[in-house]
């Protein structure tokens, strides 16, 4: 009796679970009606996220989205572990090999290098001693440079390098640029700023110009010293030939702020943006630190208010370019806000509920939905750049495109567009079954679905069962492209043309299509739209069982402010791929 009861209870649990997971206690009938209602009044549906048919299905136990930071990394590691288990023995062998090879290699290198290998001395040598050493070297011509490289590699003491230079100067009466450059690198690496200034005097006078490597090193050092303005001259010289790197700018900005010249720092910051370069995290770090340090209203030659405005501008830039700060920078931003005199900013590290509410301050985050304008722009660009591109024949043919356009016009607006082949290929060999299972689920949810596929799917085979394909065509609208055409552009077209409520179902991250878009702004729009409209199947798909989808977050992960608060998503690890968004937030609120 006992076991049966238990079993029954478990079954009940299962049913409940399934229900809560999929419809959150709603009966299918209810969902359908609510769906129909929303369909009749689209504007209401779009504006009110709560009635969204997909939002209702979200409970905290739902799996994270494919766009959540770290998902790709975790998946790769899981796959690696899987393969590692299967080929454990091979790995063992592989582990043995490098050890053996390594031993041989070092031996071989010693042997190959010939009779004598340069060894860096442990103390400064006198010129005579150096001379002896040089005579034993296998390549006396390049002895000085080789020895300096060696010193640089081993991070030797500066005195040894100095003694080498002295020897070279006495021996040849002069010094090559290469040698001085290496010595300079050693000095900058070791932080010997006074020495660098000396070298600068010498090199400036001995050589007509400096190369980019030396300029970068000098800029770096000068920015640390009171004579940081010299770095500006070097930068100006560099600009004659090449555009300096963001690193150069970053160094000088740091130097300017260190010495209280905020105006110059911001001017240089503007220059970076004008050049079309993206500032380094260090630049922002320095800029925000600049305010944090200048606590008592001393931001050099810039008023506190101006400085604050500029910082907000920087945050705006990060928002527009979808830049997410690292933990360290986020920390600095927090301190910078908190140290503002006259305001009471408080910052908290937090996360966001799946419904898009900040767990710290309880305010709602920006919606992921595009505005009407943005939507229209995206629609046009997708048509022009992804589907047609430079040559409409690349992805399809004009006839096919026209027939598809007519097809979309003829049919009612879709709720879901299914990437048939992508969904079906979850399980090889039973493709049509997978597709049917997913479509059954969509039918139960009362959604109008469009299945996009290729014509070869209609050819009966083991994978594409005739009966299943017949059922699929009954359950959903179908469009089959030529076998030689791409189906993803059609998917995007159909989804975009069915309106803002329509989603698409695919595991494909559409990165290749995103890359077809010419400008960064449209790419960001596309990505935002994708995050708000892409359904991904979660877990196992089986005919006759419910299919689960990954949740679509209703909020946009981007730096945002509303009235008295700022919400800044930040990276807490380096595992984020470029197509993922961070999950952790910094919540800044202003309490009056």
């Amino acid at each position, binding site marked *: 009796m006992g076991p049966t009861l238990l079993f029954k209870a478990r079954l009940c649990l299962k049913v409940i679970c399934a229900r809560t997971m999929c419809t959150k206690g709603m009966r299918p009938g209810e969902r359908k009606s609510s769906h129909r209602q929303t369909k009749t009044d689209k504007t209401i549906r779009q504006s009110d996220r709560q009635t969204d048919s997909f939002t209702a299905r979200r409970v905290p136990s739902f799996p994270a989205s494919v766009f959540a930071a770290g998902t790709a990394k975790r998946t790769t590691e899981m796959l690696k572990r899987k393969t590692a288990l299967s080929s454990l023995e091979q790995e063992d062998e592989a582990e043995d090999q490098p050890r053996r090879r390594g031993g041989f290699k070092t031996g071989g290198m010693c042997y190959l290098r010939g009779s004598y290998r340069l060894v860096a001395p442990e103390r400064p040598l*006198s010129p005579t001693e150096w001379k002896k050493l040089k005579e034993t070297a296998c390549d006396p011509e390049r002895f000085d440079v080789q020895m300096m490289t060696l010193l640089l590699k081993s991070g030797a003491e500066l005195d040894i390098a100095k003694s080498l230079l*002295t020897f*070279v*100067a*006495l021996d040849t009466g*002069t*010094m090559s640029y290469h040698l001085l450059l290496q010595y300079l690198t050693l000095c900058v690496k070791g932080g010997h700023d006074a020495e660098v200034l000396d070298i600068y005097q*010498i090199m400036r006078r001995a050589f007509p110009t400096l190369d980019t490597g030396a300029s970068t090193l000098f800029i770096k050092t000068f920015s640390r010293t009171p004579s940081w303005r010299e770095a500006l001259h070097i930068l100006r010289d560099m600009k004659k030939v090449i555009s300096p790197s963001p690193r150069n700018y970053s160094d000088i900005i740091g130097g300017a702020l260190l010495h209280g010249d905020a105006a110059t720092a911001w001017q240089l910051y503007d220059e970076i943006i004008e050049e079309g370069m993206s500032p380094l995290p260090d630049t922002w770090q320095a800029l925000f630190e600049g305010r944090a340090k200048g606590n008592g209203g001393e931001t050099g030659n810039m008023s506190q208010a101006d400085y604050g405005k500029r910082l907000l501008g920087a945050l705006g830039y990060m928002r527009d370019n979808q830049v997410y700060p690292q933990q360290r920078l986020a920390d600095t931003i927090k301190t910078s806000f908190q140290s503002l005199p006259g305001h009471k900013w408080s910052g908290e590290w937090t996360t966001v509920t799946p419904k898009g509410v900040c767990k710290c301050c309880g305010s709602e985050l920006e919606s992921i939905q595009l505005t009407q304008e943005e939507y229209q722009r995206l629609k046009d660009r997708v048509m022009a750049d992804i589907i047609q591109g430079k040559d409409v024949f*690349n992805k399809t043919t004009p006839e096919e495109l026209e027939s598809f356009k007519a097809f979309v016009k003829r049919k009612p607006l879709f709720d879901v567009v299914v990437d048939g082949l992508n969904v079906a290929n979850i399980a090889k060999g039973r493709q049509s079954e997978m597709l049917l299972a997913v479509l059954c689920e969509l039918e139960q949810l009362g959604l109008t679905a469009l299945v996009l596929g290729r014509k070869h799917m209609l050819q009966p085979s083991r994978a594409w069962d005739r009966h299943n394909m017949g059922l699929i065509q009954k359950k959903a609208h179908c469009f089959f492209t030529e076998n*030689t055409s791409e189906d993803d552009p059609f998917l995007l077209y159909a989804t975009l043309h069915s309106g803002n409520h329509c989603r698409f179902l695919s595991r494909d991250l559409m990165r290749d299509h995103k890359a077809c878009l010419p400008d960064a702004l449209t790419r960001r729009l596309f990505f935002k739209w994708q995050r708000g409209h892409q359904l991904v199947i979660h877990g196992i798909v089986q005919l006759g069982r419910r299919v689960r989808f990954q949740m679509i977050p209703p909020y946009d992960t981007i730096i945002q402010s509303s009235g008295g608060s700022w919400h800044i998503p930040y990276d807490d690890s380096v595992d984020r791929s470029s197509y993922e968004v961070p999950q952790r937030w910094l919540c800044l609120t202003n309490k009056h």
Partner: protein
Amino acid sequence: MVGVLLWRRSGSGTRTFPPGHVLCPRGFSSGCVLRTDASQPDRGDKIDLDLWKSVMKSQMDESPAGDGDGEGAKGPDSPDGCVLAATRELVSMWRQAGKLVPDKITEEEVQTLAELSTKSGKKKYLKYLAIREGHKKKDREKREKRRSEKEERFVESDRPPLKNSFLVQYRDHWLDRLLGWRGVQAMQFGQPLVYDMSYEQHMTPYELANSVSQMMEVEGTNRRARDPFHLHLCNLQPDSGQRRQLVRRYGADAWDRLLVTETPRRHVDLFPRERLVYLTADSPHVLRAFDPDAVYVVGALVDRSVQTGLSFANAKRLQLATARLPLDRFLRWETGAKTLTLDQMVRILLAIKDTGSWEQALDFVPKRKHDGFYAGRDRGDGGPGRDRGDRGPGRDRGDGGPGRDRGDRDPGRDRGDRDPGRDRGDRDPGRDRGSDRRGPAWGDQGFTKSFGSSESGRGGQDRGGPGRGVGWAGVSEYKLPVARIRPTPKGRTEDSRRTDKTRKPWYEQD
């Protein structure tokens, strides 16, 4: 002691500053100061570590020419000239900093360099120039070495010893004549093979140069083939970069004499549509059998980063039949794009035309790209091409093992040892040439020797049939001069012939 050394050196100072690698030693007027400085290490065994600074400074004090030279080099005040001068100086500084930079740089190259917007772009361009400079230098050295060797050889044996022989001396121009004959025949009766040259706008300058090199290789391979295609270079606009480069690299004369058809017209205008088959890696159809009546089209596109569907899009637009090579059917292809170079394509097509065996044709696919052929496959399922198998397996590349082809009959086929006095008339000369490492062999028609199982695995198949077909007509023609010409000593004759003919023999090209 060191001071003495310095003082002595000061006399030999020359003033060439700054372009050298090393600042040239110059005189030290402040020698006495230096002497005292330098004497320190000797005295107290304490090394003056900053001595080098005073040396450098004293040098500069003496001649502030460093800055002066730099200013002078900047030249005209126009901003354009200023940029160029600055670029030139940057190059010289990079050179001094030990970067990979060419020793000499022309005005045009500086202009190109200044136009490149990024630092990495500039560095890459300079690296490319430096490597090219190195190659050129090496080539020049090699050429000079060869010339001097040759001169030495002629001095040693002014006149090669005459030898009486019943064997015919083989001449290079006979081969040229033969190949020319074949080319003409192919242009009259041969199967057309179209290279579609309409992809210029899709290629970078490097890729374009590569495509031109590959086209030259295509032409050379086809010229040397036993049964060449009639090559058509379609869509080749007269003012296009591709054509300009081709003409420049062949030389205008050689280009005019080349036995290929170049035309600015489209292939669909030249041939009936139903005969055209566009070969493209993106095609859904696999080429199962080579059709001798079809006109195959190959897109002359070199894409370092694969541009999927480019040629296929063209075929779709023109509604042509398409096909891809059966690479997957025969080769264990692991990863990587199934793209082939243009010359590999012509080799594969020539081989499949000749043999009808995909195994032999796909032997020209680079080995690094795949993991060998599928074992145990039904050999010779190449379809209609099979009955052509009686042409013998001689079209194998010369790198086959000793049991392969006719390698066991021809000990002296290595082209390297063609010393003047050598008698090579002991066999059909064409066959000798044909088993060269390049290209398919030819000239073994009518040769009915039957092999046992050779390495190529087809040795016993379909052998023994008499030579036939249009492609063979050249053979009799080719044998005639052999009978007519008497053996003569080679050395000088050949040399004189070569000097009065500007065009290099085929095996020395490329």
